[in-house]
């Protein structure tokens, strides 16, 4: 059996179109050692299916869930299962909490989970895409600045902020010329009043001067 024939059979199998003989063929292909690389993942599926037919009935009384799963499995093999039931099976096996009697199927349903979206005739390509997308996701994840550098950058920023804002480093600036501070509020008032008088006087004089100058200029232009 060559690879392309096997692939055809596989597709039939997934569509529940395969006959029992064809399934046997698949089983025997996968039980031998010369399996094509791209089909190797299905080896477990058919190994399991081979094993299934030889299972003996469990000795201990199984739980309700286990019985339910067995029921669903039967439906599945007969291609009678609804999508929701298949989803139930998938969920059960992914959960990891699998009964011993069903353990051999867990790989199968993990495989089927990833196979779920594959379209007929393109198994190899889809698989390759999956691999490459995983790779790029991993690459994206690893591109990050290591914690050490973030810490250093942050510290540098902090130092820079302090450096340029040296006001923080000299909190005592407020007391420059401190010895010249007035001692009493009376003195403060005296000085303030004098200063304000000086200021307002000068302001007044200056504005008057400027007004005079403006007049002089405008008069001059009028004469022209």
């Amino acid at each position: 059996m060559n690879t392309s024939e096997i692939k055809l059979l596989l597709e039939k199998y997934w569509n529940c179109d395969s006959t029992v003989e064809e399934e046997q063929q698949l089983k025997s292909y996968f039980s031998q050692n010369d399996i094509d690389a791209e089909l190797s993942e299905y080896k477990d599926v058919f190994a399991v299916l081979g094993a299934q037919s030889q299972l003996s009935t469990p000795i201990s009384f199984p739980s309700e869930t286990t019985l339910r799963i067995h029921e669903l499995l039967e439906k599945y093999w007969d291609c009678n299962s609804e999508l929701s039931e298949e989803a139930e099976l998938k969920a059960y096996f992914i959960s990891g909490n699998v009964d011993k009697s069903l353990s051999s199927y867990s790989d199968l349903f993990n495989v089927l989970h990833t196979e779920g979206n594959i379209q007929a005739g393109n198994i190899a390509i889809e698989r390759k895409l999956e691999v490459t997308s995983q790779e790029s996701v991993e690459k994206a994840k690893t591109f990050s600045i290591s914690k050490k550098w973030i810490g250093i950058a942050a510290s540098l920023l902090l130092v820079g902020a302090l450096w340029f804002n040296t006001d923080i480093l000299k909190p005592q600036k407020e007391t420059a010329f401190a010895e010249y501070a007035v001692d009493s509020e009376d003195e403060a008032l005296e000085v303030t009043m004098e200063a304000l008088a000086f200021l307002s006087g000068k302001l007044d004089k200056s504005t008057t001067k400027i007004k005079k100058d403006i007049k002089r200029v405008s008069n001059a232009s009028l004469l022209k």
Partner: protein
Amino acid sequence: MKHLLFIFLSFVLTTTAFSQGAIEKYFSKYEDDENFSAVYVSPKMFKMAAKVLSEQENQDLQDVVKDLKGLRILKVDDPTGSYFKEAKKMIPTDEYEVLMTARDEGQKLHFLTKDNNDVIEELLLFVGGDEFIVMSFIGKIDLEKIAKLAKSLDIEGAEHLGKLEKKN
């Protein structure tokens, strides 16, 4: 996150710390110059002074003083005018805007303001002449109110600031 918080805090602290004024920022180097006499009225002093004033009757003065937070005066003999020239250069023009300049009886007057939106935070006065004087008024400066004062205040020797004595 902690680092970001630190940086944010440091910036906030510096920007809210404006109670210094130009003299403290740019002229503190003169503190050790023996030729300088200076006066400093602290914010606390102004609060106390405002209380004393309310017992008096001068409303115009009260109006101005209650909004003042700080006052600094520097005075030095400046026969060559070098201090005046130097001082003018030390004030950054993007921080202090020239309000007015004038000449009056041999004195050169420069009025500068530092404002925040439309409110004047600091009024700086340079007087150049035989004496170099710097006056820095910090607070909420209302020029109209100060102009009013010229009429109500009538202090002798206002032209000479005779009360300024060096305290050492």
